[in-house]
């Protein structure tokens, strides 16, 4: 035989939260059905009220939910070390299951302002192969460190996401491969 103890009260409170309306009578009916010992009604009322209120408040509180999922942006930089950067292809991935890509944004320089293209097959493994090129005149291409893309991510759970960036190729406007350094940085959400 089950008795109306703390967990039963919590259950009642939880249900009350779900229904968005507290039903004390239901709680008492359940208690009667379980054959519990008589508990003074006012005390049940206070207990249920407090737990109901607490459950409702915590459900509204974003911090709890955010423990399960949060959003963040990662900026991708390329430094062409003085050479005009006209095209690139890079691979960015989460090496554990803690991150999902939810958007890809273009960079800061007008040459790469448009959102880069991605390979949909690779995306299924939370691996994004980004590629972009620019047809603007060479003298207007970025030559130093520039943000070429921003990856929008959803982090799942409390596991620390393991991110990896690999530059596959970078080229100038003649299609000649150039040496460039790739790096990334997590942006602080405003």
């Amino acid at each position, binding site marked *: 035989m089950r*008795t109306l*103890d*703390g967990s039963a009260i919590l259950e009642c409170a939880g249900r009350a939260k779900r229904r968005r309306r507290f039903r004390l009578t239901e709680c008492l009916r359940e208690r009667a059905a379980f054959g519990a*010992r008589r*508990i003074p009604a006012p*005390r049940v009322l*206070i*207990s249920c*009220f*407090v737990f109901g*209120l*607490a459950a409702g*408040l915590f459900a*509204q*509180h*974003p911090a709890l*939910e*955010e423990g399960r*999922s*949060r*959003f*963040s*942006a990662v900026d991708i930089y390329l430094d062409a070390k003085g050479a005009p950067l006209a095209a690139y292809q890079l691979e960015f991935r989460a090496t554990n299951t803690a991150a*999902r*890509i*939810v*958007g*890809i*944004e*273009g960079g800061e320089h007008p040459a790469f*302002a*448009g*959102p*880069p*293209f*991605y390979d*949909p*097959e690779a*995306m*299924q493994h939370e691996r994004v192969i980004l590629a972009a090129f620019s047809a603007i005149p060479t003298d207007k291409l970025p030559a130093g460190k520039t943000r070429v893309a*921003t990856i*929008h*991510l*959803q982090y799942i759970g409390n596991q620390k996401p393991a991110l990896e960036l690999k530059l596959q190729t970078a080229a100038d406007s003649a299609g000649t491969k150039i040496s460039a350094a790739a790096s990334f940085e997590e*942006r602080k*959400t*405003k």
Partner: protein
Amino acid sequence: MKAASRRCFRLLWAPASTLLALAIALLSGCANKTSTPAGAYYGGGAFGGYSSRTITPLPGTQAGTPPAFAGTPSPGLLPQSPAAAGEELWVIARGSEPVAQRSNESPGSGALLARFEEKEVPMPLKHTSVHASISGYISAVEVTQQFHNPYSSKIEAVYVFPLPHNAAVNEFIMSLGQRRIRGIIRERKEAEAIYQEARRQGYVASLLTEERPNIFTQSVANIEPGNEIEVNIKYFHTLAYVDGWYEFVFPMAVGPRFNPPGMTEGIGAVARGKNGTSGQSTEVQYLKPGESTGHDISLQVDVDAGVPIEEFECKTHEVTHTSSAPERLTVSLSPADGLPNKDFVLRYRVAGDHIKSSLLTHRDERGGFFTLMLNPPSELAALRRQPLEIVFVLDCSGSMDGRPIEQAKAAVHRGLRLLQPGDSFQLITFSMTASRFGRAPLEATPENIHRALQYLNSLRGEGGTMMFEGIKAALDFPHDPHRLRFVCFLTDGYIGNESEILGEIHQRLGDSRIFSFGIGSAVNRYLIDHMAQVGRGAVAYLAPRDEAAQTMEDFFARISHPALTGLKIDWGGLQATEIFPRELPDLFVGRPVILTGRFTGSQQTSVRVSGNAAGQPVQLELPANLTDAAATHKALPSVWARMKIADFADRATYQPDRDLPGQIKSVALDYGLMSAFTAFIAVDSTRRTVGAEARTVPVAVPLPEGVKYETTVDESPDRN
């Protein structure tokens, strides 16, 4: 032991609960203070008796600009729509209602309080622009939807809109000012969960889902007051080629669907502000006659036909045009005709009496893709037809009332007149039930035709659309083996149970052929095209400004010659695989078919097509040059993948298979395409918006031109 522990719990619980209650009460007060947004005053509060006053319009509050509601002292009395300059705005507060209900009318402005002379309703969708580029018979279309927030608190805009049912949607970009975020294709449930979480946490996000192959939902979360967000969608599709004309169609309106009793996965048609009342998983809200939202549409089509364009026409809209070369044409929608309440249809004819069958190929790292437009051989036009058994099936439901049914009747009238001695006919009507003119098909004698015309004149549109009854009545009677049976469905296709209907047609078709006629300004082309496809016939459309008699004459001209049936294709050195449609249709005069597949061949080869026409074997040979490695048509992989998805979806209607959804999902994810099981999601994770949870505002749309509000949109609260 148990009793002791319970007692202990009670002892500890009593004081602790009191303290906790006090602490929570304090916290609760703080939480309420911090979380109450500027616009969280739904319900309006108390109103002291009737009052009225004139409000001077705020600067910049004409249609299309957000009214400056925020920060004004008395939100409960604020207007919900901007008033035009000089317009008098009456605001009435009713004192007899102690607590105002939440309204779907305008978030942050309380209950429905404003009543204004001009019925312009503020809506989050401001403008849609469409740009299509046609090359050969493949069109690349870019649709930009411009959302804004004309209210004083954060909103989520939800817009149900149409696209062509064969559109391969492969790109989705959300723009916030100069910033452009490319959406990611994901499994639908996963994308929906990401969107809901982003929405809940206050991030700007957008989600594109497919409800039907031609109906999509665009959701944009957390649009802040006064802000604008653009969503850009790109797709490819093949054009139809009908009787010598290429046809480009851009649908602009979703017609009000009828859902059979008990259905919950349909498309509900509800009045503005009555969301959640249809009992359907997707709902379209319709504006009442005389209401408008300021949402307009601009459209431009650039055609590069490759050969000189002889003529073009657009009967549906007012357009302007320019041409820089004989093979090029640019057509633009006139700004005066920017109300999105009917399909845009552009037709053009290229030089030459008869276009040749053409093969387009594309190769990339995934392999080879092709499309073949297969034209019927010219010999068919010289052969005469067999006697016919024509079954006219008329949709007489409420949505057909008015101009649509008059056109359908005019078309059938002409059809009856075109019957020849030796033919037979039947006339079936359906709305909630079906009825037949004769117990069996009647000989096409002058007396029978005269009686049928009288019966036809008495028909009018009312009631629901139980198309299933019409299908049964049209296909469930013995077939006369001496006559070819053609079933002509004349309908707007405004139903929510398309897959059920297509499954029934597949099951009951037998030797019949279905010719479907879409009647109206914004018909359900997915259903009407697929009825003809499953029914191995052809489709025709009859817009309000088209000549009904001419459309029926064209149909009779087509069936006056035998079709090329029993088609077989020897692909030769093309080495073709995975060709769609899987079942080859019959070839009718004036109606080519488009086949799409994969290939591995690399030589010059030929494709041989064979079949029967009026009992005579007919053969065609088409040269195929696969040696041109540079030949690229980048749209082809997407077009092929879309056809494959459509094939899976069609099979699901008559051959339920648990694996089909997984197969659709797999193709869609590999090719980055929208489907019923995939969706595009884009989140701006750089910034959280402020304020409480965004309120959902469904975008109300006008009814298609010619469709009556009172016979199609149910305003009752508990409609199911």
